[in-house]
C-alpha cells in the first residue's frame, strides 16, 4: 500500500507545481501546453499505478515498470533537442538584432540625431 501512496504524492506534487507555475504565467504559451501534458501524465500514473501494468501488457513488455522510465527518458531527450533548436534560433535573432541596432544607431547619428555616445558607454553591463 505504501508505494502507492508514495507514487500518488509524487505525481500530485509534480502536477500541482506545474499547474501553479502555468497559472502564475512563469511558463509561456507552447511550453505551458507541454508541461500541462506532463502534469496530467504524472497525475494519472501517480494516482493509478495499475495503468503501468496495463500498458506493459498492452505493449508486450515483460517488465512493465521499465516502461515509464523509457518513455520518460525519450521525452526528456526530445525536449532537450527542441531546446537547443530554439536556442539556436534565438541566437540567430539576437545576433541580427545586435547588428541592426548598431546600423540604425549609426544612421540616426548620420541624419543628425543626437545619440548620447558618452553616457552610452557607462550604461554598458
Amino acid at each position, binding site marked *: 500500500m505504501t508505494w502507492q501512496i508514495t507514487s500518488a504524492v509524487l505525481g500530485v506534487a509534480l502536477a500541482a507545481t506545474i499547474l501553479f507555475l502555468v497559472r502564475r504565467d512563469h511558463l509561456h504559451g507552447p511550453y505551458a501546453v507541454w508541461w500541462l501534458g506532463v502534469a496530467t501524465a504524472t497525475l494519472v500514473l501517480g494516482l493509478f499505478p495499475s495503468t503501468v501494468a496495463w500498458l506493459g501488457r498492452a505493449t508486450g513488455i515483460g517488465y512493465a515498470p521499465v516502461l515509464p522510465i523509457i518513455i520518460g527518458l525519450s521525452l526528456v531527450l526530445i525536449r532537450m533537442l527542441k531546446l537547443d533548436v530554439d536556442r*539556436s534560433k534565438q541566437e540567430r535573432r539576437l*545576433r*541580427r538584432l*545586435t*547588428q*541592426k541596432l*548598431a*546600423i540604425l544607431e*549609426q544612421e540616426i547619428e*548620420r541624419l543628425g540625431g543626437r545619440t548620447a555616445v558618452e553616457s552610452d558607454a557607462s550604461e554598458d553591463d
Partner: protein
Amino acid sequence: MRTQRIDPSGIRPQNRRPLPPGCPVPPNPAPLRPADCLAVIPARDEAATVADVVAGVRASLGCEVLVVDDASRDDTSARARAAGASSLRLPLGLGAWGASQAGIRYAHRHGFAGVVTLDADGQHLPDTLPALFSAQAATGSNVVIGTCTGRLSRAKRLAWQYLRVLTGLRIADFTSGLRLYDGCAIAALAGPEASLLDYQDVGVLMLLSKRGLRIEEAPVRMMPRRTGHSRVFASWPVVAKYMLHTTVLCLAQIDAGRGHERRRAA
C-alpha cells in the same frame, strides 16, 4: 559629437536598390570600381592600429570606410571616426564574422556595389587592395580572397589540406580576412543563413559556393601581426574545438563545395 545634417530622403546619394537574397548570378560579374565599394574593417580593441589602417584604405581606394567596433573596451570607434571612417558600434561582441556581417548588411542596405574586408590589426596592407580589384576584373569572379601562402605555418598547411579534401573547395587560405565581395556575394551573406556562422572561413565560403558564386584568390603581401593574435590558431584546445566545429559544419554541408566544382566543369 554632431555630424552635419544631410538629406534624410536618402542616406547615400547614389542609393540603389539592394539585390534580393537569391539574386541570379551573372555568368561574368562586371568589374567593381573601388569608389562604389565599402571597406569594412571589423575591430575589437584595436585602437593602436585602426587609425593607420583607415587612413591607408582611404588613400589606397578612396572609398567609404566602415569600422565595425565589436564591443571594444577601448576607443577604437572614436579613433576610427577621427581618421575619417564611419563606425558601427555593436553593443554585444559577435566575433570577427558577426562584425563583418554587420558591415555587409550595412552595405546591402545602402546599395554599395561591393565590399572589401580587411583586419584592423595592420597585417593586411591597404596598398595591396587594388590587386584584389584587378584580380576580380581579370577573372570575373564574385569573391576574391587575398592570400599570403608564404605566411602559413606547417600546422595551418596541414589543416587547410584537410579542409580542402573535406569541403571540395580549392582554396589555399581559408581564414584570410582580406576579401572582396561583389553585389551577389553581399546579398547572399547579408541573409539570416550566414548569421549563425562563428567564423568567416569555411561556412561562409561554402554558403557562397552553394549559391553558385565564383571564388578566386589573389596572392598578396601581408605583414606579421603587430598586436593581437589569430583568433583561430591561439592554442591547441582552441584549434581542436575549431577543427571539430568545422568538420561537423562540412559534413552537414558536404554537397556545397562539390556542387560548385561540378557547375564549373559543366
